[in-house]
């Protein structure tokens, strides 16, 4: 039932590659951009829909520096993403844990989970707007909806699939319910919960864009819509690439946090924490 196993080591892209490979990638990238530029200038690509890279670069300068109009929208979108993600994933983790601990509730809630899983969550967006009206609340509700599910399912399965062997060990040690929860269930479920959070944050960004496409008042989503309508494709592309960069930063940021929290899944993490604990121990024991 888990959306992600959370076990497989996180794939790394970019920065950790050996220098030779990085160079090759840079060369290929420049060649592609160069071809695009030449194709656009030579008229092989319709410049209306495929603006030249040089124009996109100029648009970047325009919207970030000269006009500076993108900042307002960027903050609006990021604020939404943050609010919706935090609310949605707290709800997801909380309900997932609650349902996971109540076998009875679990049995009766399962059909609804299956139905919810099969329904594209975005389809409900117009209904949410109808119910909550235009504005921030309905946007946040849409984001909550799209990023609720992965943390919910992953927390649920993390809690339910707690290792039988370890549970028996804890029982044999006479552990109480809270001890089982704090010292076994939560730490064991943590990597899976984090995998759910990663999916949720990516979904939150998409959810914010959909909400802005529908409401068209502010945010990067509405900005892309406006630029495209005005056939200002270079600026639209600048916005899209902005999102690419944000998406990448989110991915790396979550990976970093994940490595801190579920440190025992990587050699580097274990080495770091092991050394730290050894030092603390030796400090305490002379």
């Amino acid at each position: 039932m888990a959306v992600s196993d959370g076990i497989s080591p996180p794939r790394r892209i970019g920065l950790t590659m050996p220098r030779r490979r990085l160079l090759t990638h840079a060369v290929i990238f420049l060649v592609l951009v160069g071809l695009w530029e030449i194709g656009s200038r030579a008229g092989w690509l319709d410049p209306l829909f495929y603006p030249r890279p040089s124009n996109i670069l100029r648009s970047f300068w325009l919207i970030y520096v000269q006009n500076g109009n993108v900042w307002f929208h960027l903050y609006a979108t990021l604020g939404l993403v943050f609010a919706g993600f935090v609310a949605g994933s707290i709800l997801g983790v909380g309900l997932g844990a609650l349902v996971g601990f109540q076998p009875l509730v679990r049995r009766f809630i399962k059909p609804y989970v299956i139905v919810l899983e099969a329904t594209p969550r975005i389809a409900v967006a117009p209904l949410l707007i109808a119910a909550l009206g235009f504005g921030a609340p309905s946007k946040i509700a849409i984001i909550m909806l799209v990023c609720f599910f992965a943390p919910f399912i992953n927390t649920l399965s993390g809690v339910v699939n707690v290792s039988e062997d370890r549970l028996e060990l804890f029982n044999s040690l006479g552990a109480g319910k809270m001890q089982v929860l704090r010292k076994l269930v939560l730490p064991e479920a943590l990597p899976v919960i984090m995998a759910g959070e990663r999916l949720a944050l990516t979904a939150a960004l998409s959810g914010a864009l959909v909400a802005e496409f529908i409401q068209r008042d502010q945010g990067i989503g509405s900005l892309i819509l406006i630029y495209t309508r005005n056939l200002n494709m270079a600026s639209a592309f600048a916005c899209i690439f902005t999102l690419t960069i944000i998406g990448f930063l989110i991915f790396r940021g979550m990976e970093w946090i994940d490595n801190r929290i579920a440190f025992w899944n990587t050699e580097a993490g274990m080495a770091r924490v092991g050394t730290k604990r050894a030092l603390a121990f030796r400090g305490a024991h002379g």
Partner: protein
Amino acid sequence: MDGTGDAQQMSNSVLGARSLGKTFANGSVVALEGATFDIRPGSFVSLVGPSGCGKSTLLRLIAGLIERTSGQVSVHGTDVSGPRTDVAMMFQKATLLDWRTAIENVLLPTEMARSVTKDDQKHAAELLKLVGLEEFLFAFPSQLSGGMQQRVALARLLQTGADVLLLDEPFGALDEFTRERLNVELMRIVGEVKATTLFVTHNIAEAIFLADQVFVMTPRPGRIAATIDVPFERPRPLSLQTSPEFNTLVAEVRDVLGDDH
């Protein structure tokens, strides 16, 4: 069965059972039937028998992990009604917590009872030294070999401070060489801490080599078919296993087990 005499006898033994039985699936599976025994303080008892004869069931009854369906079982003269601090169990899998260092794993039993003190930490470090892991106090389980993980589990078992140790095929998943080494160390260690030990194994020679007494169990229904005393004095060299006296005992156990072992 003479009720008063038995009760008297049981209250003097470390670990005793009277007609102890356990059925599963509403009585259709008889996992254990009529187990009656008394174990002397500080003795090492091996349980040997084919798969499904109720070895794990007996251990889990003593550990208070499952409820009996008939008979009695007591530790230090008091009835077993649930997990207790004077009994500790070790499993075939090391069952360590991946997010804890070796020493933190060893300290787990202490954390269940109270907050950990510096002395507890020192004690845990000493136990890890006792099992030969003084270099690996701060290693995480996945950085250790299977044999080393079982050593951590053994240290954790000792950290409980329990004087009745139940070991369910503790080294069963390890290779022959590692198992033999750990068996010898186990004998030394439980001798040092003067614990009463119940040790489950499939291996007849291993059962005899380690024990003062061997309970031979047979399946369907699971029962203790014979109790065999092992007279060899300690420490026992590995070469004991090739002596004629040793092989006479092996033959005796085989005889009880019949053709299916």
